């Protein structure tokens, strides 16, 4: 369960002064649901998700991951979530196994549990062929699998994906999409951001449309279609965002 309550984040920019990256955003994602955060580049998706993952601290407002407040107990909240984005790279000089093991240990798993979990994940993701290969020698697909294993090692109830398919080829992107679906089927709370409409249509149970740091619309695909009288997701998005769209200066 993720509950975002009036999240706000402002940055100081030398040229533009104070920038409201996220402006009073509230939403709820439930277990067994995929929440899609849809927005153009610079809309505030990444900042929102980074705040949920406690990588950034909110200027105002807060959020709770499974009841843990991200501002008061960021370290505890992090134990409940797995965070994956195209920016979360692997340590090049560690092997795939060591990489996953490191994150397992940081999540407080003891050696016996850790070994069992890693073996299980490596079997399921078919990673045993490259478990002792260094991460800088892995192919993109292998790297993605290792990243997935890294987020799964402590079996978190909340999964946060920040544009996870950005820049990946179709086959690798499919692995990720499959994985996201699997997370939902296992009853996890999933939130992910994207600007690819097809992914939204295929995956999301609830959609939030964000622009200029504001959450402009929220609902299931059906609800959005009915409300705006359009059937194509892209048309709906454009209709909602256009009045607020300012090209980034």
């Amino acid at each position, binding site marked *: 369960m993720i509950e975002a309550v009036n999240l706000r984040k402002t940055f100081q920019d030398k040229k533009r002064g104070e920038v409201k990256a996220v402006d009073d955003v509230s939403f709820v994602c439930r277990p067994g649901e995929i929440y899609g955060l849809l927005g153009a580049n610079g809309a505030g998706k990444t900042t929102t998700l980074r705040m949920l993952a406690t990588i950034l*601290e909110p200027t105002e407002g807060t959020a709770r991951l499974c009841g843990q407040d991200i501002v008061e107990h960021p370290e505890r909240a*992090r134990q409940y979530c797995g965070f994956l984005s195209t920016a979360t790279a*692997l*340590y090049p000089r560690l092997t795939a196994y060591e990489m996953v093991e490191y994150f397992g240990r*940081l999540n407080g798993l003891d050696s016996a549990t850790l070994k069992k979990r890693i073996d299980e994940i490596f079997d399921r993701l078919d990673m045993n062929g490259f478990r002792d290969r*260094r991460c800088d020698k892995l192919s993109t697909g292998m790297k993605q699998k290792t990243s997935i294993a*890294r987020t799964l090692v402590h079996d978190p109830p909340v999964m946060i994906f920040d544009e996870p398919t950005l820049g990946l080829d179709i086959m690798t992107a499919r692995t990720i999409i499959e994985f996201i679906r699997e997370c939902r089927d296992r009853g996890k709370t999933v939130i992910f951001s994207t600007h690819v409409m097809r992914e939204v249509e295929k995956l999301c149970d609830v959609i939030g449309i964000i622009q200029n740091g504001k959450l402009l619309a929220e609902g299931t695909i059906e609800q959005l279609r009915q409300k705006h009288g359009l059937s194509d997701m892209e048309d709906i998005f454009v209709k909602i965002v256009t009045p607020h769209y300012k090209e980034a200066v």
Partner: protein
Amino acid sequence: MSLRNIGIVYRKELTEALRDRRTLITTFLVPLLMIPVLGAGFAGVMSAVIGSAKKEKARVAIVGGEDSPGVVAALKRNAKLNVLAATADWRNQVVGKEIRAAVEIPPHFELDLGQGKAPTVTINVYGGELKSEMAAANVDSVLKEYRDSVATGQLVANHLSAELLKPFSVKRLNIAPPEKTAGAFLGGIIAYMLILMCLQGAMNPAIDLTAGEKERGTMETILSSPVSRTHLVLGKFLLVVTASLVTAILLLFSVSVSSTVLQKSGALEQMADEGEPIPQLALKPAAIASVLIMTVPLSVLFSAGLFTIALFAKSHKEAQSYIAPLMFLVVIPAISAMLPGVDLTPKLAIVPLLNVSLLCKELVTGEYHWNYIAIIFASTCVYAAGALYLAVKMFQRESVLFRS
């Protein structure tokens, strides 16, 4: 404070560091090889130059002197001089280093001697050039001997005692213990090298663990793990300190081995002047141990400082360009400590780096001023703690971690 988490971070960083070729070279290879290579090169060149200069029969031209056969003969008798008749361009020959010196003897030189006119003999040398200076010194001593013999002759001719010329004699004796004579020189160099190695050993890991992590995109990955940022920064910092200390220890090891080898090789006997005691380079275990203890707060200071600076950078290259000017800040006090006459005073004892360099210089020579040792150890600890606090604080700042 969870030691477990700091330990996990440290172990992982250690694994990675031991697989990083750049870190391996700067931490292990450089300190081990620098001293023998530099030392052997320096000692080899020095003993070769000094040895050949001492053996050389210097070519010296005599300008004039046709009417003064006595002084010319005295010069020709000296075994270390190869006396030639001057050609017209003797000045160019000295400047061109074809001959080492030219001795100008004025006309009627010997004739004037008996008449109290005190003529002047000029020795033309190439100033600052070792072989020329040595030839001139030989000429000088021949001329002084000749002057004495002339004076003695005149005294005898006037029925006076030759002892009037030397009412007393002067003798200089070096009674400093041999290890201190060498220590004053060696201590400065060791302190300089040590400071440089401490910094050099910390540099690559400090960059790799901060800017390098940003550059490779792993910063966001690690920040999403439950480890607290304080634990993360401490684990990383400990690895940087380890690298710095290992580098310093290997340097000291290499210094003591090379100095012992050098001592036994006999190169020092060649360098020492005849009659002077041979300098003792081999370091005493107590000196090594005390220098090592001073190295600990120094390593912490460097590691925390470099860590903080490198943290601001977004890439390895950017970090290096920030750190390059820092090298000068460190090298200047380290070099000042090598200068003769710069000694520890209460004021200098709180100047960071300079105090440690000066103290190391003293420790190597076997002097232990406990009050200075306490002040310097304590003040360096304070600077180190300040730098570490800054590093931890900076690691909590989003504007530093996510600088764009």
